[in-house]
């Protein structure tokens, strides 16, 4: 992760304190924590070094995720209580615990669970009567498909709008788009999905309300994600553009007689491109933090979110655990790829 998330942190805008943290070498997103800075230095020598270091960090985070999930489900809650009827006596609960092996020492159970994960065994779903991981992997492609289409739409609207608005701060276009994007950030995403269903499926009848049958059923859920996340990408890209436009070289280019469009395409866009790509990358990771799953449920999109809600209502822990860990692994791998891609592009830019 590094300090890269600082940009995302102060939701909606690149603030002054972030800008102050920027060092001339590392670009605006990277080196805002000492660790990230040190690692950027240490890994500078070899590509393999960076990849290994980041992979190791990712692995540590994944183990942490698994530990936390296991502790939460087994110490904070007691799985046996879920299987037991409401009026079960202590003896009955003890019998259930014994049947599921829950009466063994905590560390032993964790060891078993952890070893199981490495063999791809996340336990058996008592709802679907099959390995939990199968159900999760079956749902994963639908979630990936939806989230990629959603982020593509969000990046398109966010970047085009953000650059145009940021190029002329406080113009009418800027004010209108800025307000729209704050609006997009403020409405509940699942509600936005319902609104789109109401307008485009119920009233106009152009698109199906839900499900994943036919090519056009993905349009509404993807559009919902694109609006919600496009709003935030817009905010970040806009402030990055505004900041870039105020730099001295822009004034120099203007005084040389370049038109606004030339300044924008030849200079500003080239310099903000890297930041923009990273912003879109982080936003994709963020989508996996929440919105995508609620949207899936609204549109009955058969992905991980819908699976998890159904599993939650049936108290199926193994599916819940497996889904969170798989989603966590996906987030960690995405983080890793974005980070490495950023470095790869940065290197080329630096060398040129």
């Amino acid at each position, binding site marked *: *992760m590094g300090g890269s*998330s*600082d940009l995302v*942190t*102060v*939701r*909606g805008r690149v*603030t*002054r*304190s*972030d800008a*102050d943290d920027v060092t001339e070498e590392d670009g605006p997103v990277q080196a*805002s924590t000492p*660790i990230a800075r040190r690692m950027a230095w240490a890994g500078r020598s070899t590509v393999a070094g960076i990849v290994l270091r980041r992979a190791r960090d990712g692995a*540590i*985070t994944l183990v*942490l*995720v698994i530990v*936390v*999930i296991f502790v*939460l*489900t087994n110490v*904070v*809650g007691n799985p046996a209580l879920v299987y037991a009827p409401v009026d079960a006596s202590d003896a009955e609960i003890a019998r259930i615990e014994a049947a599921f092996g829950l009466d063994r020492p905590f560390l032993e159970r964790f060891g078993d669970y952890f070893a199981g994960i490495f063999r791809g065994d996340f336990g058996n779903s008592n709802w679907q009567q099959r390995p939990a991981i199968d159900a999760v992997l079956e749902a994963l492609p639908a979630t990936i498909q939806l989230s990629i289409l959603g982020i593509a739409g969000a990046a398109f609207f966010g970047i085009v709008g953000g650059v145009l608005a940021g190029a002329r*701060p*406080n113009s009418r276009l800027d004010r209108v788009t800025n307000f729209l994007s*704050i*609006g997009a*950030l*403020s*409405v*509940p995403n*699942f*509600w*936005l999905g*319902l609104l789109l269903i*109401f307008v485009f499926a*119920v009233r106009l009848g152009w698109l199906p309300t839900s499900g994943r049958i036919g090519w056009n059923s993905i349009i509404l859920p993807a559009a919902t994600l694109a609006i919600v996340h496009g709003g935030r990408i817009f905010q970040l890209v806009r*402030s990055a553009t*505004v900041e870039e436009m*105020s730099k001295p070289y822009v004034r120099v280019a203007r005084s040389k007689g370049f038109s606004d469009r030339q300044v924008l395409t030849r200079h500003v866009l080239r310099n903000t491109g890297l930041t923009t790509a990273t912003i879109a990358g982080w936003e994709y990771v963020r989508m*996996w*933090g*929440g919105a995508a*799953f*609620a949207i899936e*449920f609204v549109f009955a999109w058969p992905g*991980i979110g819908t699976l*998890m*809600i159904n599993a*939650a209502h049936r*108290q199926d*822990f193994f599916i*819940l*655990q497996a889904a*969170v860990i798989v*989603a*966590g692994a996906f*987030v960690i791998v995405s*983080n890793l790829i974005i980070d490495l891609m950023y470095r790869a592009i940065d290197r080329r830019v630096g060398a040129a």
Partner: protein
Amino acid sequence: MSIVIRDLHTATVAPSSAHRAVAAVRKQLWLVCPLFLMVIVLWAVAPGWFAPLDPERIDPRNRLVSPLTATEAGRHWAGTDQLGIDLFSAMVHGARLTLLVAVAATLIGACIGVIVGLLSGYFSGWVDRLLMRLTEAQTAMPMFLVAILLLSMLGPSVLILIIVLPTLVWPIFGRVVRAETLKVRESSYIEAAVATGCTTRAVITRHVLPNVMPRILVLMVIETGHVMLAEAGLSFLGVGVQPPDTTWGLLIADGRPLLTVAWWLTILPGVLLGLTVLCLNILSRRFETRAGAAG
């Protein structure tokens, strides 16, 4: 941010008097936000005063009445649901729990985040590395899913919700406070405080914290909005607040099956929630520009 402000001032063109009047009104337009939020807070404090009808009063003869229709019970500003319950009254009564959960969870999250941020910003070294590692691990976790997992295990309730929701926001507070603390730590008054023999604890609580406070407050306003949306999401998915308690998110969920016949049951609570979060966002943005201009 300072750049944006400078542009704001230089970009104004010499205006006509009509323009100036419009601009003056527009400049004060943001005042609508605190007013709106005040109304919502009043709803939360004394719902009985503001709700025209009892939100538990069932009226079988006036089911699914569309908004603005008047019946013998009074005017239903936001229509009624399938039991004839007045939606506007339900929304007024829902304000209390919506606000309570959001504010309580944000406060708890802010406390955790501020402590983590102060410690890791003030003591660099292993404390910093450990705490930042934790924050990073937390950010990598799909917290919304973890929240679903936790709530379905422990059984959804308001209390559990207030315990689970802060996990979504504390890393943000941690990171921002840490960055601010790093800056404040270098200033000469901290050096002076240390030199005059203040204990570390006194330096942090009396000198560092007050200087970081403005940023924390701005962040709290934004995050309250985010927590509100998260709570609505969890309640909507059925793992948050449970009936008979009501929040706006739950009202949206209740209206969802009737979307095709009674749109207002779904759309209007969402509009209310969206406007509240919008006001919080606009307000925090305003504070932020102010803080930026001052500092």
